């Protein structure tokens, strides 16, 4: 059932895309088939395959009942990590790469260690871990910023 929704999503996407392809300008002396030629073929093929697959699912009782693995992405450990991921992205935008990375590494590593082993380890290890991760973040920052001269995003604090 979930899979049918998933495939339906793609069929919808293709339908929208197809519609959009009619709004594209056509240059008069374009002898190469136009910009819409190839995408339309792809979208048509994708729709056909999705429809066939839906028919196959509807025919097969077992498949109809099968669970579509998707929502468990948002629960428990995976959900936490996904959230951390998203917040990291926002953090880079707002706080700048360096601060966001330090926060992300420390929080994610510690929380995940808690998930994995049930505790955070002795205070000595927590300290070592924190310093090490911060140093790691600095190292990457230095590598990209100064050696590769690729500008890392800076946030409201300017670093």
């Amino acid at each position: 059932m979930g899979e049918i929704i998933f495939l339906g999503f793609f069929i919808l996407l293709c339908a929208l895309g197809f519609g959009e392809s009619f709004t594209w300008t056509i240059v008069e002396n374009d002898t190469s088939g136009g910009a819409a030629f190839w995408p339309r073929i792809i979208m048509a093929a994708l729709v056909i395959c999705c429809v066939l697959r839906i028919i196959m699912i509807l025919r097969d009782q077992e498949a109809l009942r099968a669970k579509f693995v998707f929502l468990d992405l948002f629960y428990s450990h995976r959900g936490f990590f996904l959230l951390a991921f998203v917040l990291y992205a926002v953090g880079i935008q707002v706080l700048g790469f360096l601060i966001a990375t330090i926060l992300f590494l420390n929080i994610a590593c510690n929380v995940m260690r808690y998930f994995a082993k049930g505790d955070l380890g002795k205070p000595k290890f927590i300290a070592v871990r924190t310093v090490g991760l911060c140093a790691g973040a600095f190292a990457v920052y230095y590598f990209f910023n100064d050696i590769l001269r690729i500008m890392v995003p800076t946030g409201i604090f300017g670093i």
Partner: protein
Amino acid sequence: MATFLDALGQIASLEVLLLICVGTVVGIIFGAIPGLNTPIAVALLLPFSYKLGTVPAMALLLGVYMGGISGGLVSAILLRIPGTAAAIATTFDGYPMCKKGLGAEAMAIGTYGSFIGGTFSAIVLAFLASPLTKIAIQFGPWDYFGLMMFALSLVSALIGSSVLKGYISMFIGLFISCIGLSSLDGLTKRFTLGMYQLEGGVSMVILIIGIYAVPEILSAAGKLREDMATAQYEKKHFYIPSKEHRGRRYWRVMLQSSIIGTFIGIMPGLGSSTGAMLSYTAAQKTSKHKEEFGTGCPEGVYASEVANNAVTGGALIPMLSLGIPGDSVTAIIMAALILQGISVGPLLFTQHPDLVYVIVIIVFLANLAMFIIQSFGIPLFAKIVQVPRFYLLPLIVMCCAMGCISVNNRLFDFYLIIVLGILGYALENNKYPLPPLLLGYILGSDTELYLRRSLMYYGSFGDCLKMVSAGTFLLIAAVVITVAALVMRNKKLMSKLRGKKAAA
């Protein structure tokens, strides 16, 4: 002979040999870290190369080139994150091997295969450059289109259990490759949803990290209690594949992949990712052990790694003899040569024959350096797997973040990989295989470009088909292979159903 000795003389200096090693190490590092890739490394070292002479500059840049193509296998095998696009196909069998605990062995196989592929194409470069160039220029857009369609038809090699799911995956990949400004004329904004950042399309690094790496990271986050399988390896310092894995059984796939890789390299416009994919799918189709592919079979690792290094030597052929770079790295190397005052092209072999020999020798040495350095490095690399997941995953995310931000210098791509990651997660965990998606994406925009060019040349699709050329032949072969694969699957399905009915 005199020029050969002359060339040897130019190489035989400590500076040159050292630069080859330095370049190779830099290349391996950049290749291994996902998000950093060889063009960045080459661009980084290019200003240094201005100050060096021609031969040392070539030594450095070619070392980076060889190291970079090969280094991608490290993270591909250990983390299922291809360090370079060329290593995508290495993940198909390399990562399962690592999960079985054979990570070090897989890396050794990859390194050994890279060495073989690179050396093979270097030999071809040395002796067959001119005749092969003449053949290569006979391939026009229609032939390229046929070749791309042929490569796409081999997708059936990557499909696991369900044909439809595999095709859906491939078409999704093709669809993604259409996003952005249209290929030929750059006139139309396709599927960009009004976001100007999508006008460049989804770049390769972003797609690989988003669809391929992020789902794996997210899945692993849910399995924190299990540690990754410890890599079994003897405490060797220098790691080469076991005798069994170097044996006769694998010679055929090595030779086949070398030839395919070199051939793809010679064709201007096709790169190492195409070569590795084509080689992998072809190897699966022609292997006696088809079912093993995808489960951790050394043949698969050989097929991918031999081919992607064979492309390097092949790509140097059109660069030197026609002035046409095979990929972005050879383009920068070519620019470096031009800036040194050496015009590549048909006159190169007559005006600077010693330079050609120099480049060939450097390529051999760089391959050797790559092999030695990487084999020493394998025990170190293998230790990465032993780092507990709760440290490893956030660190990987950090590297991926930086990598994808550095592609276009903006944060948008980071959000994009999250979206792609969710899509990839949905696909992968419901048995929609990801390799066809990657195949479709890699080949998509080129296929369209060659199709449209062919139409400009010949007028209509029908006119193109009427031509007696490699393109038509390959297109027919593509159709035949697709139909045959579908029929064979149906047959299996029919006989299975019949078998069930008979049993029941």
